[in-house]
């Protein structure tokens, strides 16, 4: 039979023939002799408890102020795979210019000032760094109300610019919550500059804070925690689910992220009678992987993905087929009820979400947030 004939045959209605029928006619196909073995995976549905409600305060979602300046630095330094400690961004400026930075040289200039004199340290590094005024930062306050009515606060990430974060912390009263011990735990979503490098500002007010990181932190990042003056417990979480308290857990993903960062951890909260609330830093693992893993691993009320807060770095994966828009198709499936996304989600993406009818929480456009289209700096959202 010639090739043409085969294609004609298939075009001519062969699509109606069942595959099972073919197999029984001796056609070599998926016979047991040939089958590859794959372990079966099933939904684990781990019960991790519940809480009454969770409120998230956006301390800052503005990681940098001018995207074109940041992308210019990245491209100028050699692209998305360049190690973040080499850029000569603050606070690791050594005065040698873009892509000629080093953790060690930068740290030498400011170490003696950390963590108490963060403002002074920032002035020092500012003179030595590339685009220091472009630095902002990402940080959020998470307030849990437990089933018994007790309240508990966690800090997620600590921003980038000492100056900007210091302002934001004072604005939201984070400095006082840290000093008083009301906040005693800092969860770091990942090692990226805009989520992590503002650490000394936290340590200025609470040097013995408990810090939780993903095991993918590089040696420079771990050294920075020490050099910033940390005196408390450092907890390193491994891949998969890690417990925080009943109803609250984190999930660590092992994925490479731009600027030579590895791994991200996101927070899952089970809100009683509502469902699962996900709180992310950047969600580099991709919102689809993120939601999929919750579905596969966790048990939550009503089997409902209820809400989401944070950056939704939509998908690190290029997609070649316009029919499959991960953003729209992938997320609809989960039927989120409240979406408070900001930061790296991107304004255009949020607007696209809104156009597609997703329940986007809008904000007030204060404190250098540019639009009311998403939950901006100083805005709060309560789940439950």
């Amino acid at each position, binding site marked *: *039979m010639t090739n*043409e004939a*085969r*294609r004609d*045959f298939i075009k001519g209605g*062969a*699509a109606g*023939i069942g*595959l099972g029928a*073919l*197999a029984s*006619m*001796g*056609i*070599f*196909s*998926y*016979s047991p*002799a040939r*089958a*590859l073995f*794959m372990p*079966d995976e099933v939904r684990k549905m781990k019960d991790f408890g519940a809480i009454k409600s969770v409120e998230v305060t956006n301390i800052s979602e503005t990681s940098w102020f001018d*995207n*074109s*300046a940041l*992308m*210019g630095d990245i*491209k100028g330094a*050699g692209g*998305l*795979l360049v*190690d973040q400690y*080499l850029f000569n961004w603050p606070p690791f400026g050594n005065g040698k210019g873009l892509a*000629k930075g080093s953790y060690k040289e930068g740290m030498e200039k400011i170490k003696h000032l950390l963590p108490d004199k963060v403002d002074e340290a920032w002035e020092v590094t500012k003179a030595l760094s590339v685009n220091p005024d472009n630095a902002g930062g990402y940080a959020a306050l998470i307030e849990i109300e437990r089933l018994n009515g007790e309240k508990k606060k966690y800090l997620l990430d600590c921003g980038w610019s000492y100056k900007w974060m210091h302002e934001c912390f004072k604005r939201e009263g984070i400095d006082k919550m840290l000093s008083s011990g009301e906040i005693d735990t800092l969860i770091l979503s990942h090692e990226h500059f805009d989520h992590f490098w503002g650490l000394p500002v936290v340590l200025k007010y609470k040097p013995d804070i408990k810090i939780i990181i993903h*095991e993918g932190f*590089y*040696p420079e990042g771990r050294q920075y925690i020490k050099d910033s003056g940390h005196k408390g417990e450092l907890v390193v979480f491994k*891949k998969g689910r890690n417990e925080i308290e009943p109803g609250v857990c984190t999930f660590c993903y*092992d*994925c*490479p992220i731009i600027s*030579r960062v*590895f791994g991200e951890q996101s927070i899952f909260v089970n809100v009683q009678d509502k469902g699962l609330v996900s709180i992310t830093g950047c969600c580099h693992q*991709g919102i689809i*992987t993120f939601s999929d*893993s919750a579905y*596969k691993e966790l048990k939550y009320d009503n089997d409902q993905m209820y809400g989401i807060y944070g950056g939704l770095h*939509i*998908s*690190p*994966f*290029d*997609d*070649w087929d*316009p029919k*499959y828009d991960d953003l729209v198709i992938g997320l609809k499936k989960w039927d989120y009820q409240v979406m408070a996304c900001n930061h790296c989600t*991107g304004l*255009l993406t949020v607007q*696209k979400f809104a156009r597609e009818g997703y329940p986007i929480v809008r904000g007030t456009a204060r404190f250098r947030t540019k639009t009311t289209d998403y939950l901006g700096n100083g805005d709060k959202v309560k789940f439950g």
Partner: protein
Amino acid sequence: METRLNLDSEMDLKDICPIKFNYEFDDYRMLMRSILIKSLYDSQIKALSRYKGMHKSNYFNECWTMKFGFSEGVYGLILSEVKNGEAIFVLYYFSSCSENLLDNNSLFEAMVASKEGYAEKIRNFSSYKELFNNFIIAKIYVKVENEGIFLSLRTKLKDRIYSKDGVVIDGKQVIKEGEIDKNFPSFRASLAFVNFMHLAISGIYEPDFNSLKIYKKDGEAICYSNSLELNTKKDIFSSEIHINMLYGKSDKNYLFDESGFKILKNNSYMYKFLINLKKESKNLALSTQKDRANFFIITGFLGSGKTKFLQNFIEHETAQNRFTGVIQNEIGKIGLDGQLVDANYATIEIDEGCVCCSMAGQIKMAVAKLNEKNPDTILLETTGVANPFNLLSELNEIKDIVNLCSIVTVVDGANFLREYKRSKIVLEQVKAADVILLNKIDLITSGEKDKILQILTKNNRCAEIFETINSELNPNFLLYNQSQTSYIASLMIEGKIHATHLNEGIVSFKKDLREYIDKERFINYIKQLPENFLRIKGVVSFENDEAQYVFQFVNGKFDITIFDREKRCDNFLVFIGREIEEDFYFPKEFYKISYY
């Protein structure tokens, strides 16, 4: 410029992942996932391997699908097992229904590919037995060593399966007795992936590329019968091919038992297939690959959807960590669209006049200015009445500082049949296009669509036509299709003088509005406008209403939406039309307030 941390010859897995590598299933799965994702962040790896992207499926066994610019089909990859610290990945090639290669698949595979939902199912291929256990083209062995990494591809020159008894379906002899069912060029199909892996490992680790060896051994074809009995028979085309590569160092020279294999000599034709795998050629390729922005010209008649296209484009690119620069040109004095598209990108507006008549030298300046910010792509949005042919001499000036990619023309499906007869420029834009978006197909009948397609094809046989709603087109279709540059160049040689909008009597003027016009009167006035008004746009405020609104009018249809910016701007309207006169079209009744 220092681009990478680790330039010495020793392998350092930390460049991929700082977590201790334990040689277990999860470790290897993470390694491959990391290579696939990291490569997406490297424009050189992508350009050289023509890697178009990947999809990671999580149900329930993680598997990946990816595409390369060499063929239409989709590659699949899954980690099958880890034995003695060595990983075995299985590589698939899912032929596209429309490509000739499908004829070389087995009848069974061809039938699977013809079923509805095939394209969707591929993305989760590990969940479907008929996909998972067919379409396999190779196994990839990976072994991480202390200071190196082995990569080995094992495949067949051709995967051949015979049917002993033949196949009869519905009384039709589909395969004759003893004839061939499958004749798939597995080795050839694997090369795109091997080439990619090589570039990715070299690009991420920059290790010493120590050895490349190709082994060959006589192989056998499979023969099945009606009684489900499997036999093998000698077949010269079924030879087994192993490609063995070592990066960095290892105590061993090879990853598998060589007995029975012969090593092909360096000058064998097999090596010619793999020319890219040699380090010298890779370096050469990298050095000639200039890091210039991709340059697109976006044309389209007034209101066809160019700005929307721009918005979609930037949205997609921003999500992919890529940076877009935009040069906008407006026929009116205010670049309104520039204000409306608010995003993470750099814009330069050329406000003086129309790009096609009076822009000599300005595009070059704008490109140079944008290049300071290192954009990945520059889009030049021309005014709706520009004739792209007049731009071509300008392109000559910038051809050394950007990659000229293509002229994209957005065609207004809803108005095309009416407009193309009246305005020569509409057809000129179609003729100049490398890519045509037939937009607004949701507003026309299929009969109208066919008629438009016919006219488009008649006027431009080279352009690829995409049918769109809201100008939604994945930029990947444009970004990785750079073969059109020569076509642009050929147009430039023609050197004809083309019609400009001045010849057609198209004029524009801007009117400043005082605060608060009467909404009802304004709408009535708009409804009565004669047909020679092509486009009106601007910002207006109405009586008893605090808000500002964006007003858009295209060929009789209009749209009033809230202008959602913190900073108010002055109210104005820009009128564009054929032989319209400035004074007449500005009735005093708008200003109810002025009569008080």
